[in-house]
């Protein structure tokens, strides 16, 4: 069986009608044709073109298109800080935190710099909108603005976010897996919510490419802490129950976000996708889905990073390419054996869940629960539980 690991441009070529190229039955490829659906910052939208409004995604608007909606929201909560990110860029390039409209003014003047923005005064924004006003919203110039999580959970006084890897082998029915070896990325500078520090990106942005430029960056560990360590710390200091709840919520949020876009994705059976999910945990231990990356960085900054990414690739291949010879065809049922999962855990398998529901109906009559079963006898459970 062949497998193709392609960049965004090659994917376009592969799937474009003009190229006339068709994938054969024994070829798999690492993206879905319209995989950007979930991942471009401005495209986290549902079928109607609205932003997915889920209570675990910070409130988000597009600028300049949604400017009026944003102003309305801004007036409701004038003391909130907002974060502005350019669409279609990654690794923290061009992100601002704005909490005064004057800041936004300044940004519009020297806008071509790098810019993360926190907004909290409307005047800044108005000015900005006038200046850039009503230029057609090409992706180059559009920004998303979302509510900034200003009460992040701090460990050792520092802010961090989580990078988790999620493998999707099919959207309809949804089949997805969560990788156990994710990591937390730490800022090098102590967190400080005060307005004076809004410009200090080493305080607010966890992106390794930003932190790397700081003088306190440590190349040995690169500010990366494994999720297992974080779990151990939370269980030790906060208790097992709340920790389990946090990770359960993260899992459900991931499933829900995938469910929300699954209708839009052209579900090609040659395709699989490895997403990088970014979560921020706030000080009430509530996770917030910040961003989804379709091409998470696979370069490594440290040696343990390299080991982890090798493992990720290894385990991923084991899942997308069936190990049993006779199944070497993309039409297999995509239910890998449990022992082939490696460090992946099954997040959700819609097909199995439906079967479960059917079985349950037979057993219990209508209204049987799909979630939270405790039946150990089933060979492959439909969720991680």
């Amino acid at each position: 069986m062949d497998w193709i690991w392609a960049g965004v441009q090659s994917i376009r070529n592969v799937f474009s009608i003009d190229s006339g190229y068709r994938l054969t039955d024994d070829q798999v490829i690492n993206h879905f044709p319209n995989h950007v659906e979930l991942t471009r910052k401005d495209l986290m939208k549902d079928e109607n073109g609205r932003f997915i409004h889920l209570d675990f995604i910070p409130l988000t608007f597009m600028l300049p298109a949604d400017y009026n909606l944003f102003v309305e929201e801004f007036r409701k909560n004038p003391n909130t800080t907002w974060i502005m990110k350019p669409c279609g860029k990654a690794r923290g390039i061009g992100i601002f935190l704005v909490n005064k409209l004057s800041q936004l003014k300044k940004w519009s003047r020297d806008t071509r710099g790098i810019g993360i923005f926190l907004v909290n005064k409307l005047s800044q924004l108005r000015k900005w909108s006038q200046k850039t006003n009503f230029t057609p919203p090409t992706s180059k110039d559009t920004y998303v603005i979302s509510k900034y999580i200003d009460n992040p959970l701090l460990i050792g006084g520092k802010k961090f976010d989580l990078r988790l890897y999620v493998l999707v082998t099919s959207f309809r029915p949804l089949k997805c897996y969560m990788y156990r070896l994710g990591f937390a990325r730490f800022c090098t500078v102590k967190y400080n919510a005060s307005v004076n520090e809004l410009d200090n990106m080493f305080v607010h942005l966890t992106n390794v490419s930003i932190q790397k430029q700081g003088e306190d960056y440590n190349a040995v560990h690169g500010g990366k802490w494994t999720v297992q360590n974080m779990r151990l710390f939370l269980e030790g200091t906060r208790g097992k129950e709340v920790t389990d709840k946090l990770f359960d919520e993260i899992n459900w949020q991931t499933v829900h976000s995938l469910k929300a876009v699954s209708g839009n994705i052209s579900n090609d059976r040659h395709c699989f996708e490895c997403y990088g999910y970014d979560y921020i945990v706030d000080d009430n231990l509530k996770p917030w889905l910040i961003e989804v990356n379709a091409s998470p960085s696979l370069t490594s900054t440290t040696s343990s990073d390299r080991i982890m990414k090798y493992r990720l690739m290894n385990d991923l291949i084991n899942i997308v390419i069936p190990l049993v010879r006779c199944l070497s065809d993309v039409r297999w049922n995509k239910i890998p054996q449990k022992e082939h999962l490696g460090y992946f855990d099954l997040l959700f398998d819609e097909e199995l869940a439906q079967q479960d529901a059917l079985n349950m109906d037979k057993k219990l009559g209508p209204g049987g629960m799909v979630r939270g079963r405790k039946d150990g006898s089933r060979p492959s459970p439909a969720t991680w539980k």
Partner: protein
Amino acid sequence: MTDPNLSKIFMQTLIEDLKSSKIYTDLQNAAQIEITKPGVRLSELKKGVQAGLIHSYETKVTIPSNTTRTYQRTPSLSQKSSEPKLQYPVTPPEHAKEPLLYLRKAQHAWEKRILKSLNSMCTELNIPLARKRPEKEQKEMNSKWTELGVEGPDLTQIRPVYAPKDFLEVIVGIQNPNYHGDNNGFFPLWGIVQVPVKVKSINLLRLQYSEMAINQCQSGIDDSTDIPSELFDLDRIVNANHGPVAQEFSKKGCPSGLRATLWAQMLCVEVDDVDKLYYEQLKTSVLNHDLLVDSLLYKDVKLTATNDDQYFVFEDFLYQVLLPFSRDTFVLNHFSQNSATPPKSYIRGKLGVEEFSVLYPPNGVIPFHGFAMYVAPLCYLYNDPVILYYVFREIYTRYFYRLHSISSHHQGIVALSLLFEVLLQTHEPELFFHLKTVGCQPLKIAFKWLVRAFSGYLSSDQVLLLWDRILAYNSLEILPVLAVAIFSFRKTNLLKVQSYNAAEAVLADLTTLQVIPLIQLSLFSK
């Protein structure tokens, strides 16, 4: 305690000790309140007060049950001030610290060496052992107390006073003068530790660690299957707040969510307002004076924890524990059972004059390379630096001080090293012989593990599972058992190596190991 005189002395000491404790004042206050209550008759004062106390104070009397346990601890580990001074037989204090003269001498010489290298560093770099901080500097330090790692002192010239490797050389060099030094003598040891201390056989260890047997459920391995009825029991254990109960339970490992509580119970650490105040005082003395040991501690954190991908997030916590620790004179108490003696320094110009001597550092402990790693794993359990501090202090003064002082105690580093060698010789003779022939004495690799209690070598969760057992079994002997288990586990590869470096490479990364199954394997499967 069959001798009535003896028990009387014990009682007196105990009462003396209780008088200086917090429960005593609490009870006294409560008694005074009882007296003023109407309905207490003068003729039945004693009875009335007692009854009232029992009635109103019942909850409080049961809670400190853990405090009383401080006095029930095994005498071997905690001959604290509560140990009464007996009239007979009189043992000189240095014998109580270490009965064997040649070990006492060795420890003394080692201390002198450490002090000398400390002093020479002072002279070389022209920095004082201590100096008062100017007011401005004090304020500045106070304002960034929680982020001391950002701008520490200049450390380029500072080097650790010693590393486990240097200490191993000293231990290897110790000879028992009562034996003939030639290898054909009647005490031929394959290993490099030549001190004839009695160590336990594997059978005794099996008995000691019988709760770790393979047929017993262990936390961290077998707990993937939840049994709800056990949760109920767990609550009862935690609520009992009784050290021995916590200890008995923890023999099979602590569940990660309850470890912080159970450890505090086993160590009798209950932080109250007085303790918080005491910590603040220690902090003030850190702010007031700049000591050379501070730089040593800083340097150590920077060399170890800061670069460790498991512990780097806790860097600032470590300073908040280690710096006050160096000022804490309470730590001096443990020297009554430690073979080491706190080093002395003299006020400038008064060298050698006893009246002008001060203990340096104030807690008497000179940190070595890796000292910060005794604290680092605890950061996974306690988010509050004050609790973290007291738990660390208790663990150190109960257990870890033995890992870097020369003594004949069965939990001292000498006995642990010997136990490691003897166990490995007995159970893996082929491996031991092979390594010895290619010039790689196993202890040369394992020694650093033992000195650091494996902290920084294993993955963080495994260190905690291991330390569970240290606290629960009240013994450090689990360390050499694990070291032997690791050698057995990597035996196939070790038998192929032909040099010290190759062997070290085989054992360089221990982060993938699961310690409890390994220990079970080497203790119970042969």
